[in-house]
């Protein structure tokens, strides 16, 4: 390799001698630097933003959920309350699974809240233990209702008021079918940060909810041990659960559409910014071709003195590598440093009412940087191979003749 380095390094230095070659090699190295820096920065911004979004999503979505269609469980329709509950069996199975830290049973139903005048249609969420993590209230279960602010406002409810919860499923009474109802106090009022406030559920203790809405949709939300893999546990649970009875969904599956959009967004941004690198690679090809044509006679002399064509090709490959590694290395490092700086000192701020945080977060991921560098290497290697190929096809006599004319 001594010879190849010897020549390539000297030719690298001599790229400053000719104005055109200097312009092209500067464009190459500069373009690669700008391209990789921009890519690293763009991916870091995207990762920072997506990271926040996913964290938020993880707070609102259980790692794993097991859904049962309440009334639609085969064979369960019409059964009385005394029958063994299939939900309990599943909950026990889930709780006994390795890596599952907790199981919470939930019930979804549509019902009404009724004050003295008229009923309001509401989403009802039956819960056990504590309110689910995505309902922004702190603390233990309350014996009464936890009402979203949208419902409280419409109905003029305040904490302490008593209100009637009405189920669409009638109960048989001596005076004929009557709606099932429960009178419960309003214990808490919460404000969700969601856009669709109308869908915010009224939280009812599970016991009351099951009694009122026996045919609601049942769901088990599993919390996992920190290091547990949702996909793996999901697969395990699927083996033990009849798919006709219940469906196991990981948070990835539950948010498939969103995750797809996030990936798509990343791919599009990547492709768009990678165009800079593609253009810089063309500049590299042009620069190498220019160096080669300006050194044609010299390469001919080297060939005449017995330098094998593959080694002459390697000289120009190395020259291409020197031009690209400098630019890409500098650009990648600069991009990562800038992203870290922008994140650490929260340089770019956003209005706090449109975004979860009031600054643009950046997250430099090792894999992202690696992908950027690999892409750069692939692009420039292709350009360098194309540019250097001519060096090995050179005929020494023709090449030396070209110097004289």
């Amino acid at each position, binding site marked *: 390799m*001594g*010879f190849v380095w*010897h020549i390539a390094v*000297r*030719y690298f*230095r*001599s790229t400053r001698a000719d104005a055109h070659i200097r312009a092209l090699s500067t464009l190459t190295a500069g373009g690669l630097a700008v391209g990789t820096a921009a890519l690293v920065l763009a991916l870091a911004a995207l990762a920072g933003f997506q990271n926040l979004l996913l964290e938020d999503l993880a707070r609102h979505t259980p790692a794993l959920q097991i859904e049962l269609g309440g009334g639609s469980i085969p064979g369960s329709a019409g059964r009385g309350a005394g029958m063994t509950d299939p939900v309990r069996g599943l909950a026990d199975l889930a709780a006994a699974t390795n890596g599952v830290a907790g199981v919470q049973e939930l019930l979804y139903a549509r019902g009404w809240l009724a004050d003295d005048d008229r009923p309001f249609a509401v989403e009802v969420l039956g819960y056990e233990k504590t309110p689910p993590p995505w309902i922004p209230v702190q603390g233990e279960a309350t014996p009464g209702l936890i009402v979203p602010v949208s419902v409280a406002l419409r109905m003029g409810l305040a904490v302490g008021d008593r209100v009637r919860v009405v189920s669409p499923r009638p109960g048989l009474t001596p005076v004929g079918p009557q709606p099932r109802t429960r009178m419960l106090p309003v214990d808490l009022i919460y404000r969700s940060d969601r856009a669709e406030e109308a869908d915010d559920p009224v939280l009812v203790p599970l016991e009351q909810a099951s009694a009122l809405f026996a045919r609601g949709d049942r769901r088990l939300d599993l919390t996992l041990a920190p290091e547990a893999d949702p996909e793996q546990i999901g697969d395990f649970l699927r083996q033990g659960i009849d798919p006709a009875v219940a469906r196991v969904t990981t948070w990835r599956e539950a948010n498939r559409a969103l995750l797809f959009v996030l990936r798509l967004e990343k791919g599009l941004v990547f492709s768009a910014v990678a165009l800079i690198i593609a253009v810089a690679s063309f500049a590299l090809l042009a620069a190498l071709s220019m160096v080669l044509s300006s050194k044609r*006679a*010299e390469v001919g*002399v*080297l*060939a*005449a*003195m*017995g*330098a*094998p*064509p593959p*080694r002459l090709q390697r000289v120009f490959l190395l020259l291409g590598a020197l031009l690209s590694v400098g630019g890409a290395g500098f650009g990648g490092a600069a991009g990562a440093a800038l992203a870290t700086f922008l994140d650490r000192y929260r340089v770019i701020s956003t209005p706090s009412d449109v975004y979860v945080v009031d600054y643009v977060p950046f997250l430099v991921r090792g894999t992202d940087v690696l992908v950027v560098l690999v892409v750069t290497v692939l692009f420039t290697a292709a350009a360098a191979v194309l540019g250097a190929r001519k060096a090995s096809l050179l005929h*020494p*006599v023709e090449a*030396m003749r070209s*110097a*004289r004319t």
Partner: protein
Amino acid sequence: MIAASGVTKAYQDGAVRRQVLRGVDLEVSRGETAAIVGPSGSGKSTLLNILGALDAPDAGSVRVDGVDLTASRPSALAGFRNRSLGFVFQFHQLLPDFTALENVMMPGRIAGRPTSSLAARAHTLLDQVGLADRAGAFPQQLSGGERQRIAICRALVLEPAVLLADEPTGNLDSRSGEEVLELLDTLRKRRDTTVVLVTHNPEVAKRCGMVLRLDGGRLTRSCPQSP
């Protein structure tokens, strides 16, 4: 040392086919110096390139230093040129990005010789041609005669069996030309190198043991004493 027989070479120049060599026979023995003379365009460089394994003849056989050039693969020929041949061109063809010393060392670097002994050898050669103090100079800082002397050092650095020189003085004034020839002669004698030299200068040819005239695509021996 050099044996060529029935060498032909034609160039296709657009629609025209130019037969440059029409059956050239040549024999030069070890240590001998042969001058090839002839009018411009008669094919002297073409013949020298064929002898130097830089170009292949259309027909005929060429043996140099025991190697059949027409039967060897290109990669083998590259190694052969590096090991056994030294080239001096009409235009010095030094590499402008390298110093005089580095230029002289270049064939050795191609061969992968250790740099230190190579540098010592190059210094010795530069000393012999009187350019020891110009070792660090770049070609553009040197005169035409100095460049050609350095080119000779480069051709001889690996002590080749055969030295091929294509009008080595063609670009020099007569005094520098004289110096260069003197030098070639001294260095040749020291190592018993076989030399083939192309020239159109009768004065130059006169100094050689054998003078060959290339004309009409054929090589004829001419008496050096009676030009």
